């Protein structure tokens, strides 16, 4: 089990109803962790359309979930 902080942006934040939350999870990887959160919050976006960041830097979906980390799921961007 790892306790982590999750940041939500744009449509993910609207769906989650919060900008961030502290979550305890037994997921082995970031990919598995998103699957859990997607089920909980009903996120429309599949993992293939997202990128993931840990501690303010892009990370790999196969990275392990590490205790105390700050994880952000990045929906398709639309700046400019």
């Amino acid at each position, binding site marked *: 089990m790892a306790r982590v902080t999750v*940041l939500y942006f*744009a449509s993910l934040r609207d769906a989650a109803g919060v900008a961030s939350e502290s979550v305890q999870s037994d997921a082995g990887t970031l990919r598995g962790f998103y699957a859990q959160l997607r089920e909980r919050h009903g996120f429309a976006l599949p993992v293939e359309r997202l990128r993931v960041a840990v501690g303010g830097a*892009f990370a790999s979906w196969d990275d392990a979930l590490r205790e105390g980390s700050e994880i952000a799921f990045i929906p398709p961007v*639309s*700046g400019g």
Partner: protein
Amino acid sequence: MSRFSLSPKPFGIAPLRHALDDGRAGAFAAFEGRVRNHNEGRAVDGLHYEAYAALAEAEGERVLAEAFERFDILDARCVHRTGDLAIGELAVWVGVTAAHRDAAFAACRYVIDEVKARVPIWKRERYAEGGEDWQHP
């Protein structure tokens, strides 16, 4: 030095432009992205931009650094707005100086293309007919 930045408030272009003054620069190319009154056939009233600030700034700097590696330029800057914007308001500005115009144009184009593609900033459109929508292209 910070070449990419986010601005939560309207920003003026003149000081950004003057920061790039350089006697070696024969060419300056600039791009302004502004809020359009329509998108994909729908009338738009305004926008809201949200950013993941820490990552957006890091990724924006990376884009500018790549522009320096790829093109023979003297300097470059990019500023992107966040928050609520009205029609016609400046959303993003890119400015590039170079000795010659080929590099200035190419780098300016590179920066705006990569910023739009990679930097974690999201646009929520507000429609004239009512309703709002996050754009996740």
